[in-house]
């Protein structure tokens, strides 16, 4: 038996083959000539943006289908995971209505402006549920979707916008109950009913403004998501959801107008006036509209500022 060391084995020449250089290092095929025409103008120009630049409007349009998919995903996932699915959307305000009808309507006897308290409070809760869930969901949306933001580009504002829009779908479903109740309680439609669409748009824009602003702040200060539920709860009690605004304005005397500075007063009161007839509080409505516009402008501005660095911070 004979053994040879690997060193002497080298004389046999397995290594006589010079080590090949890394494949392709030497023989580079030149790039093939371009098969497609380049556009004259760049498709995209990447540069630091000012908050008011309009470059993103183009993107918003280009990515409009994504907005649809984000809304669709939100709804689909929420309903798939929950056992009762869509039923929850109806059950939540219905259960609250039941409790408040018993305690506030029957025991405390809160006035309800000529309609049954059940109907009165359901209408308020319906709008409120939409508003609060849109603001809460929208406010957390950027943080929740951090994994998207750090991986792929799209106009970031679509995230809170989709969260709000998805709740609008919920709202539409629960609205059917209100329609049913109006028939049951024989509340006839009036010309006021025409005000419903603009009022719902106003509520949605107000929610969008809050959600956009809060989602941007939430990226930097996670405190927002902790404080938000408490603030939302408080906001419900200072808004005419469970009681008519008259209760507050009467108590305030000639300082009654102060109550209308809460932008939800005009919206909630107006929503009921549109459903049940009655007079619109034009002052409160104007305050709501003006506040919403100002908030949207400020929220957009803040959001755009944060958006520039959101992928760095989140």
């Amino acid at each position, binding site marked *: *038996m*004979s*053994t*040879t060391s*690997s*060193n002497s*084995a*080298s*004389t046999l*020449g397995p*290594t*006589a*083959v*010079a080590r090949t250089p*890394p*494949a*392709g*290092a*030497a023989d*580079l*095929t030149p*790039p*093939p*000539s*371009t*098969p*497609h025409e*380049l*556009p004259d103008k*760049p*498709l*995209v*120009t*990447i*540069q*630091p943006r000012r908050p008011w630049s309009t470059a993103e409007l183009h993107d918003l349009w280009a*990515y409009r*289908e*994504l907005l*649809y*998919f984000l809304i669709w*995903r939100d709804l*689909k*996932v929420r309903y*798939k*995971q929950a056992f009762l699915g869509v039923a929850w959307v109806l059950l939540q305000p219905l259960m609250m209505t039941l409790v408040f009808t018993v305690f506030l309507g029957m025991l405390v006897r809160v006035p309800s402006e000529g309609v049954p308290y059940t109907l009165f409070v359901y209408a308020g809760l319906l709008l409120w549920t939409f508003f609060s869930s849109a603001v809460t969901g929208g406010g957390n949306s950027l943080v929740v979707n951090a994994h*998207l933001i*750090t*991986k*792929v580009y799209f106009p970031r504002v679509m995230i809170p916008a989709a969260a709000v829009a998805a709740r609008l779908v919920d709202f539409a479903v629960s609205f059917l109950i209100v329609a049913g109740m109006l028939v049951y309680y024989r509340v006839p439609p009036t010309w006021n009913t025409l005000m419903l669409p603009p009022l719902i748009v106003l509520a949605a824009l107000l929610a969008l403004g809050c959600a956009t602003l809060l989602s941007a702040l939430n*990226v*930097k*200060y996670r405190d927002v998501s902790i404080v938000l539920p408490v603030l939302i709860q408080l906001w419900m009690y200072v808004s005419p959801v469970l009681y008519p605004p008259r209760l507050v304005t009467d108590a305030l005397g000639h300082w009654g107008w102060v109550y209308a500075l809460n932008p939800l007063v005009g919206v909630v009161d107006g929503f009921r006036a549109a459903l049940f007839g009655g007079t619109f509080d034009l002052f409160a409505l104007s305050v709501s509209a003006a506040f919403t516009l100002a908030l949207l402008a400020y929220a957009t501005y*803040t959001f755009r*500022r*944060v958006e*520039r*660095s959101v*992928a*760095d911070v989140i």
Partner: protein
Amino acid sequence: MKPIIKAENVSKQYRIGAPAASYQTLRDAIAGAVRGSLRQLRRDGRPEGETIWALGGVGFEVRPGEVVGIIGSNGAGKSTLLKILSRIVEPTTGRVDLYGRVGSLLEVGTGFHPELTGRENVFLNGAMLGMKRAEVARKFDEIVAFAELEKFTDTPVKWYSSGMYTRLAFAVAAHLEPEILIVDEVLAVGDMSFQKKCLGKMGEVAGAGRTVIFVSHNMVAVQSLCNRVLWLHQGKIREEGQPSAVVSKYLRSSCSARAEQKWDDIESAPGNDQVRIRRACVRPADGTPSESIGVKTPVVMEFEYWNLAPGTLLNLSVIVSTEEGYPIFNTGSGREAVWHGKPFPAGLFRSAFYIPGDLLNDGTHRVRLMFVKDQSVVIHDTDDILVFDVEDVHEKRSGWYGKWIGAVRPRLEWETELVEPGMPALTEAAG
């Protein structure tokens, strides 16, 4: 020819750390936070503090059909550049013009939701990557066929195996058909077949005259796939041109031998609040780090480190690679007798292992050190903590001095025996 990507003076500044402030009381803290938040909002929502330039004035052009490799050590700005090109982060200064749609293989599976079915995720993911719904619908069958998941399109992806998940995600990205494809280190993740698919897709994209930007630590892949290479160093382009030339310059600079590294100041030593490295060295088993190592020399690698988190179950994992970055072997402290499996108290530790002689081949070796907690979580990872040369020992080579092939050069026992003496009995063809 007109460039498809034109980048001018692109810089990116990151603020690191929290603003320096010391709050005296809660009231001060709240007041300070309120003042601070107002101030910070005015300042683009970024906190004040120390800043670093991840990219400092990078400019380049890429022509359609080019495959451009971007190389550089960790922290050189490669990922930042890719993120800017794919619009995930905004540059601090500068401008990039893109004359084509950008798709990137770093966003494989983005937006996949476990509750949604394969079909639903394909549409969602496609929309996220910028595809129109009609486009996804047209390519849907092709995507599913590519992923080999025809039977599972209506199954929620949470029931998918990870392989199925990756295949589907990659299939969507692969059908995006961008004019500019960005590939970031995909070769580091996924199994062999996935890597092959990625590389195949890159080749196909490049072959169709599209443009590829490829970032990798794998110099062999960079050299074989790219026709031009940008070498980023500390946020700037250090060298640009022919792959083989740039890669070899890069390797030479990054592999300046360091057989020993010491950090006297614990603050600036590599590490974090859990571990800090004090010293690393590689030396002949019976010598010092300044002595040379030959192919026959038994070698000891030593690491001294502070454990700063008492009670941690700590493991060291070391990967020794060739100069080009091919891993040769990975060894862990899992078989160490005294401390393995015990909680480490805070303190200075030294771990070492022994490499027998006649194992390493000659050439430059790079050492990567990872600290692993609970045998699963990498808490710190240092590339090229040591770089050392193993020298050939010529005397026994009997005259031939070519490069010995292979990542290792083990000295194995051979046997040869005479099975049958005499000339082979060639059967004369009887015709």
